[in-house]
């Protein structure tokens, strides 16, 4: 374990940028403000690269650098240090967050150029990077939680960025509240972990330190299921899984770059990151892993179906994000943590690109988001179109785009783990993904333009600050997956190898647990044995090849179908709606009425309870009546007695004072 002073600056430089932008605000010109914000993130990115390079130069087993600022709190045996740490996992996340974040900062320069809250926007954005880096680089669970809450706060601030509109403000509130529900579970899980672990620790050991947790995983084994499920509640909130995904689509109320950065590329992956970080814990609980996998798979297919019927371009992408997050959860659930992180990375590239592309479209369409009035933008926005197409191919999983490698790997892990049902759900969702993405592309870029003539006149390609990030991200969407080029295709699965030390020990714990009688997941044992050496034998079978080819074909089929239905025979869709499919369509369009169901199940009863019991009974009756007025009455009664003493006669006060002293002195002298 080595120390690395740069780590603190990686985290603190964005905070500095946020502070400057936030405190000086309007006193900064837009140029300086933007330069400051982008510079801060850029510096952070460069430093991340430097630390990453240093990590590569180290032994694979000891790739960990730390930076301790001091002790945050130290109460008896409970101790929390202000520590930043970067290992292989942290390095990947740091590079993705600062890298993609930097590009989106650049993009924002153009996108937000005419906004009044320019400085405030960049202050929030930098603050977000700070919080996210705290989350990713935090050396213990408490620091992670600080970042976790920090990104939630920034998300709230940015969703409600245009707070003049009521809908935006309530979308922000919704995100915050739903996240709080998840955080509640997270906190309880942490408390449970802490109380279980504390009695077993020596003096001065930080209880939530990841190394300490890792070393004492055996102690936690009895409560592993409960802890993991509670933590997973937090993850469902942050990573928008069933049942707490509902905030993410509404979060599209924020500026589009924010959607790209926070609600697609970085923050929402925090849940996945947390599970990967605590993999040694999750592997101790097969139940928890099974739940993770199931929830992930169901979310993937569920959100994909909703995406089919949405008309708002950003809503489609939002549900697509939820679906992709389901994939990542699925990967974690089957024990393939490194594949999950791989998908986090590739998804960051192409989903950021998709959002930024849609932002470019919205920009061009004078803030119109409804796809039904778009169309034919292919010629007007050539760069946007090209890059958007690349991203579409990537998300659909077409070889050799980035999405192919990660998604295929996830499906293969599911299959090879023996979970055929999970594989089938994922496979189906992959097809649906290709289909709705094609629908989106067709409705937006092909056919006739359906916008009003007023809007049509203003359609123009975005400025360079916006298109350059698009191009960079497009290239990354193409080549970004190649670092995980699998063995069976002659590659080296370098990404998996890089992360392997992080997860290998977890797998060993799992395997060890199996020997010592603690129940673990069979899959994990298999995975543990199925290192790249063992994988040689498997790819001989050709199953992997088969699955890969099938999934590519499946994706292409989805794309072609989408093309056919929405472009060549546009009447098919309408026909489907009329011919009995209307019910299905309405169901999907209204997102399975989940919001309405929540409204009926929780919110309205909550209102009613608040109104009848809490307000009229508790607040007005108990608190106002008994506590407030009652205490006031008591004070009044006392006061009416004491008022006799407050007669304004200073000498009377002095007299009572001397009487008191006399009594006290007499008591002292006669009591002894």
């Amino acid at each position: 374990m080595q120390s690395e002073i740069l780590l603190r600056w990686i985290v603190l430089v964005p905070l500095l940028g946020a502070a400057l932008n936030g405190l000086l605000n309007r006193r900064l010109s837009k140029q300086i403000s933007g330069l400051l914000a982008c510079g801060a993130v850029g510096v952070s990115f460069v430093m991340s690269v430097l630390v990453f390079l240093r990590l590569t130069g180290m032994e694979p087993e000891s790739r960990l650098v730390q930076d301790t600022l001091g002790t945050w709190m130290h109460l008896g045996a409970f101790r929390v240090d202000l520590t930043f740490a970067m290992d292989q996992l942290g390095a990947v996340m740091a590079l993705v967050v600062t890298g993609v974040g930097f590009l989106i900062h650049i993009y924002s320069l153009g996108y937000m150029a005419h906004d009044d809250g320019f400085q405030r926007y960049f202050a929030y954005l930098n603050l977000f990077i700070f919080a996210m880096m705290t989350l990713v680089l935090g050396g213990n669970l408490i620091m992670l939680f600080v970042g976790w809450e920090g990104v939630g706060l920034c998300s709230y601030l940015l969703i409600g960025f245009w707070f003049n509109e009521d809908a935006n403000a309530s979308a922000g509130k919704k995100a915050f509240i739903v996240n709080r529900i998840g955080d509640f579970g997270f906190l309880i899980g942490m408390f449970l972990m802490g109380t279980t672990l504390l009695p077993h620790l020596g003096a001065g050991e930080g209880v939530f330190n990841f190394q300490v947790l890792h070393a004492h995983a055996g102690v936690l084994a009895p409560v592993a299921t409960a802890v993991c499920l509670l933590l997973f509640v937090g993850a469902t909130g942050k990573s928008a899984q069933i049942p707490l995904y509902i905030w993410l689509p509404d979060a599209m109320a924020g500026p589009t770059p924010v959607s790209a950065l926070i609600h697609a590329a970085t923050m929402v992956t925090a849940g996945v990151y947390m599970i990967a970080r605590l993999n040694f814990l999750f592997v101790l609980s097969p139940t928890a892993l099974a739940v993770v996998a199931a929830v992930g798979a169901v979310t993937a297919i569920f959100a994909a179906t909703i995406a089919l019927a949405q008309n708002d371009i950003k809503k489609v992408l939002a549900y697509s994000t939820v679906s992709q997050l389901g994939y990542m959860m699925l990967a974690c659930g089957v024990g393939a943590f490194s594949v999950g992180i791989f998908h986090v990375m590739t998804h960051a590239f192409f989903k950021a690109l998709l959002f930024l592309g849609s932002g470019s479209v919205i920009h061009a369409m004078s803030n119109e988001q409804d796809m039904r009035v778009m169309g034919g933008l292919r010629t007007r926005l050539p760069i946007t179109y090209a890059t958007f197409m690349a991203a579409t191919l990537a998300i659909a999983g077409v070889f050799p785009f980035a999405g192919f490698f990660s998604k295929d790997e996830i499906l293969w892990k599911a299959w090879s783990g023996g979970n055929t049902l999970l594989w089938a759900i994922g496979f189906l969702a992959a097809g649906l993904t290709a289909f709705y993405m094609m629908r989106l592309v067709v409705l937006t870029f092909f056919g006739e333009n359906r916008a009003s003539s007023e809007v049509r006149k203003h359609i123009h390609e975005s400025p360079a600050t916006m298109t350059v990030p698009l191009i960079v991200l497009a290239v990354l969407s193409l080549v970004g997956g190649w670092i995980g080029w699998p063995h069976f295709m002659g590659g080296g699965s370098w990404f998996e190898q890089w992360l392997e030390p992080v997860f290998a020990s977890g797998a060993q714990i799992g395997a060890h647990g199996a020997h010592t009688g603690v129940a673990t997941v069979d899959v994990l044992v298999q995975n543990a044995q199925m290192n790249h050496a063992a994988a040689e034998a498997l790819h001989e079978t050709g199953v992997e090849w088969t699955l890969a080819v099938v999934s590519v074909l499946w994706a292409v089929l989805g794309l072609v179908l989408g093309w056919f239905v929405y472009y060549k025979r546009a009447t098919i869709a309408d026909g489907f709606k009329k011919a009995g499919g209307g019910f299905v369509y309405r169901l999907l369009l209204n997102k399975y009425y989940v919001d309405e169901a929540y409204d009926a199940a929780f919110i309205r009863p909550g209102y009613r309870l608040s109104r009848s019991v809490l307000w009229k009974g508790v607040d007005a009756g108990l608190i106002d009546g008994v506590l407030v007025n009652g205490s006031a009455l008591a004070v009044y009664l006392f006061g009416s007695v004491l008022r006799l003493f407050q007669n304004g006669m200073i000498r009377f006060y002095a007299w009572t004072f001397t009487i008191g002293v006399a009594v006290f002195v007499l008591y002292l002298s006669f009591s002894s």
Partner: protein
Amino acid sequence: MEITLTHYLVLAGLVFITGMVGFVVRRNALVMMMCIELMLCAVNIVFAAFARLHGDGGGHVFVLMNFAVAASEAAIGLAILVEIYRRRRTVNVDDLKTLME
């Protein structure tokens, strides 16, 4: 008759009572402050007497501290009284009953 510590304590006690009674009886705020000074003086005598008893100069130091406190008290108190007089044209505490209303 030999003079003992008790003599000094009794003397201090009597002086203190004098100041105390004066503080309650007098109406003039200035005289009330003077009564406080007298009480402080009684305390000083006790300090000095005990310093003599123990042969330790600490008591003297405390008396000096008391001087400083008395000086501060006089400065601030008199300044406040002057200010009160400017507003109310009186230093009779029985006329200063604003606190009651």
